[in-house]
């Protein structure tokens, strides 16, 4: 773990010591090296499941893909924000980079933690840099409102979790994930136990976000600068899924009955948010709502507690992390040129940016789960396990796939196809940096087709 953690922390000296000229290349290179080192976690040769563990940290099949995704995303965030941060004074650029590195450190600690309390603290700590990124570097005045929503929704969910965790600590005597499974099972039947169950999960469901408590997400996504949107969509939402998978192992007897309303909300949310996407006029908001819809599927997959559901959830989290982040990058390339997120103002871009159009196409295909992309594997596994749980879920999930296809292709058609309007003729061409950025998003997705076992959790 420290092989990655210490170089990540050493990014701070790199950021503050290098000359302005080398600031961006040096940070990008170092973070890419960190991402490279993080790939060694994929080498599983242990029987126990836990690897590279020290006193507090460790990796297993569930956390490894998420950890690698975290490490992979930092260089991408740096690449993506280069253009819009560059005009600012040097110190602010460095602060911005430091915030992202803080976030990465917290995230590595959160995913790597073997102790739930450490995970909880890091889970909360990620709020701070994200909040600063949104409220300081957002583009409009609404960013303050978005920051408030972001903070209060998440906190309102996660403070009960603290109480629930303390209660758990008192009951079982430990919060270590390593020996969680071996603690004697609790008898949970009173009302307060049910409230405790809800307390354990609601924090994560808000973070996912579950439909109904999702209002903070579109706001935060829309107002955040590109790096904020990327990290929110790619990783911070996955903290919720990760936490749920970890927590449900101990909540077992209650989950079976208690999960019903949440599964229903999640599935219903797929359709509702999908329909919202169909009528969305704001590019970033559309992508944000599409995230809510996909995360609904993940939440449902986790809550029904079958091996296939869990595997599908992990796959979909990783695949969606890369794809939605790619979509936000694409939205940002358009935004940096047209200075508007309104979809109707940026049409027919294929004529101007042909290569960009093919990135849009691939990203949208991945978003609508084209086989054999990992997105489809995840969706198929979740849909299968939901179908096994109840045949009727097929109506909702099936409608969901239909609507997903509709809005993804609508997004592609309306932004790339059709005649180019006259007012956007004078756009400057796309940078190699942007193409590199998108290649680095979409290439892993395509490579993962060949070896999806890397993100299959315990089903491997």
């Amino acid at each position, binding site marked *: 773990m420290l092989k990655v953690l210490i170089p990540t922390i050493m990014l701070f000296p790199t950021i503050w010591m290098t000359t302005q000229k080398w600031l961006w290349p040096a940070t990008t290179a170092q973070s890419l090296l960190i991402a490279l080192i993080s790939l060694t976690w994929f080498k599983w040769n242990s029987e126990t499941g836990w690897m590279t563990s020290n006193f507090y940290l460790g990796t297993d099949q569930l956390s490894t893909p998420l950890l690698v995704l975290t490490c992979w995303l930092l260089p991408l965030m740096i690449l993506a924000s280069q253009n819009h941060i560059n005009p600012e004074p040097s110190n602010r650029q460095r602060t911005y980079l430091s915030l992202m590195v803080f976030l990465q450190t917290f995230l590595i600690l959160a995913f790597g933690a073997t102790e739930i309390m450490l995970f909880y603290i890091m889970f909360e700590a990620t709020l701070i840099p994200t909040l600063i990124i949104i409220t300081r570097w957002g583009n409009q005045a609404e960013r303050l409102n978005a920051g408030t*929503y972001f903070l*209060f*929704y998440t906190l309102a969910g996660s403070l009960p979790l603290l109480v629930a965790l303390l209660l758990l600590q008192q009951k079982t005597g430990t919060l270590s994930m390593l020996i969680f499974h071996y603690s004697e099972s609790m008898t949970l039947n009173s009302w307060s136990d049910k409230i405790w169950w809800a307390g354990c999960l609601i924090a994560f469901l808000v973070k996912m976000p579950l439909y*109904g*408590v999702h*209002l903070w997400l579109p706001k935060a996504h829309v107002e955040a600068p590109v790096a904020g949107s990327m990290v929110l969509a790619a990783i911070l939402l996955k903290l919720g899924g990760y936490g749920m998978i970890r927590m449900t192992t101990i909540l077992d007897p209650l989950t079976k009955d208690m999960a019903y309303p949440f599964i229903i909300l999640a599935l219903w949310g797929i359709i*509702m*948010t999908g*329909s*919202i*996407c*169909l*009528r969305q006029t704001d590019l970033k908001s559309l992508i944000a709502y599409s995230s809510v819809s996909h995360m609904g599927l993940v939440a449902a997959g986790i809550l029904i507690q079958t*091996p*296939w559901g869990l*595997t599908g959830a992990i796959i979909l989290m990783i695949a969606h992390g890369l794809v939605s982040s790619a979509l936000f990058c694409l939205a940002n390339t358009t935004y940096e040129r047209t200075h508007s997120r309104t979809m109707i103002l940026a049409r*027919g871009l*294929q004529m101007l940016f042909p290569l960009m159009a093919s990135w849009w196409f691939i990203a949208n*295909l991945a978003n609508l789960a*084209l*086989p*054999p992309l990992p997105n*489809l594997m995840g969706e*198929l*596994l979740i*849909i*299968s*396990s939901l*179908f*096994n749980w109840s*045949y009727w879920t*097929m109506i909702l999930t*099936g*409608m969901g*796939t*239909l*609507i997903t*296809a*509709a809005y993804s*292709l*609508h997004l592609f*058609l309306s932004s*790339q*196809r*059709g*005649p180019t309007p006259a007012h956007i003729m004078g756009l400057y061409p796309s940078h190699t940096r942007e193409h590199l950025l998108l290649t680095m998003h979409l290439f892993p997705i395509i490579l993962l087709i060949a*070896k*999806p*076992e890397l993100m*299959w959790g315990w*089903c491997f």
Partner: protein
Amino acid sequence: MYITPMMLSSSLVLTLNILLYPLLMSLSPTPQKPQWASTHVKTAVSTAFLISLLPLMMFLDQGTESIMINWHWMNISTFDINISFKFDHYSLIFTPIALFVTWSILEFASWYMHSDPYMNRFFKYLLLFLVAMIILVTANNMFQLFIGWEGVGIMSFLLIGWWYGRSDANTAALQAVLYNRIGDIGLILSMAWIATNMNSWEIQQIFFLSKDFNMTLPLLGLILAATGKSAQFGLHPWLPSAMEGPTPVSALLHSSTMVVAGIFLLIRLHPLMENNQLALTTCLCLGALTTLFTATCALTQNDIKKIVAFSTSSQLGLMMVTIGLNQPQLAFLHICTHAFFKAMLFLCSGSIIHSLNDEQDIRKMGGLHKLMPFTSSCLTIGSLALTGTPFLAGFFSKDAIIEALNTSHLNAWALILTLIATSFTAVYSFRVVFFVTMGTPRFSPLSPINENNPAVINPIKRLAWGSIIAGLVITSVFLPIKSPVMTMPPTIKLAALLVTILGLLSAMELAAMTSKQFKTTPTLPLHNFSNMLGFFPATSHRLAPKLNLTLGQLIATQLLDQAWLENSGPKGLASTQIKMSTYASDPQQGMIKTYLTIFLLTSTLAILLMLL
């Protein structure tokens, strides 16, 4: 190692690799030469066709079939997913046909699209379309089949929307994908069901395990999938809309890829449904309804491509009927023969459209048999083959289907609908031939009519040969598994021909009236029903998206997200807190004297109380 299976598998793998070569080549960053489309893509397809003849010959001679498992792709605990190919009689026969037809279409496209700046890309898409279809046909695994299935869907999206500057083309492309997606729900349902109940997606294992299960639900899912892909009634509107694409795309889409994929899925998985009466009856009735409905729509269309498109839809309905009759082999036979003449009909219409300055309205054609003798004779051959004229390709499959239908004791309603549709085939085919080739020219005198180009003549000629002899060749080498009823009363034996001739005669009678004033006020309702496509697009085709979009706007966005969730959540909380905070802050007005006085007063009182 025996030589025959080795040759069979290796030549098939070679076929696939040759097709993949131009695709891999196009990944190179240096731009391809302008003639890359003809030199590489077309050559790859024709070479692949020639190589695929080898396994076909071996199959015809010795009956060699094989299943090939190449690579263990992934496993989800105990669930294996492999890359495995199934080279059985279906894929061994279909692959060469698809390659042959595509080869002709590509050659034609090199003439039709010669002025397109992105011709190489166009060819690449066509090739990818073909590869996806071959993956689908040779797949021995539901997941692999699904890759091909979605692959053809997405490639059709790109190809139908080729002229993406036009909003009609984009709409048609979107329509195709969305209707197919509805079908995909069915396929996903079946896959989920099979995965959870049988724990395998390998097709032969599914066949083996399905004996113990009630397969109705997954079969209905498969039928829904085929309905979407093969444009059966209810999910058919995308097919005529797909005519927005360039004509070579329509030819490929309608002959050997995409639309037959749905029927092929049912043929491939037919052992699952052969004992399930509900599924079979559903197929039968759905097919009969489709074939009649779309044949009716074809009657009064004026766009030449739309007529051909509706005739495809009608033939697809016929194939569905055949599957409902429990005769998958006949359906497969019809797919094969249909591929030849349908591709040829499209190429002929493409040639005509191009020659008449992109005119598609048959009312503005006429007299072309003098100006384009070759194309119009091939158009006639194609139409004759389509109507099932004896000893042309269509006859061998169509007549056999109608005979099987007549001798079965199944649904008479379906039988009658199919027979009416068969006679309609003659009517609309004759109408095309009549309007396009006969009579006097009705187009502008300065049309650039020229069919003297090998890239036009050769493909059409090859397909014409195919339309003439393919039926005979395939039926003589491809023996039916189920023994057909051969003896029957003359009226039943001749039923298909009789209704066709009946249709032809009435069409000729109607055609004779075109130049006479028979009725001053025509009876329009029936005509409108047919011309407006049964009012289907105006009603259900429009209603569902409208409802969904309204739901998205009014309920999901405005009512729930912006009103209820906001007001019951953050805004509601804020407004309830405001009152309390006003109460709390109101007393604190900064009146320091009053505060101090009260402080003094209360502390004195407290001290007094303590002292007392």
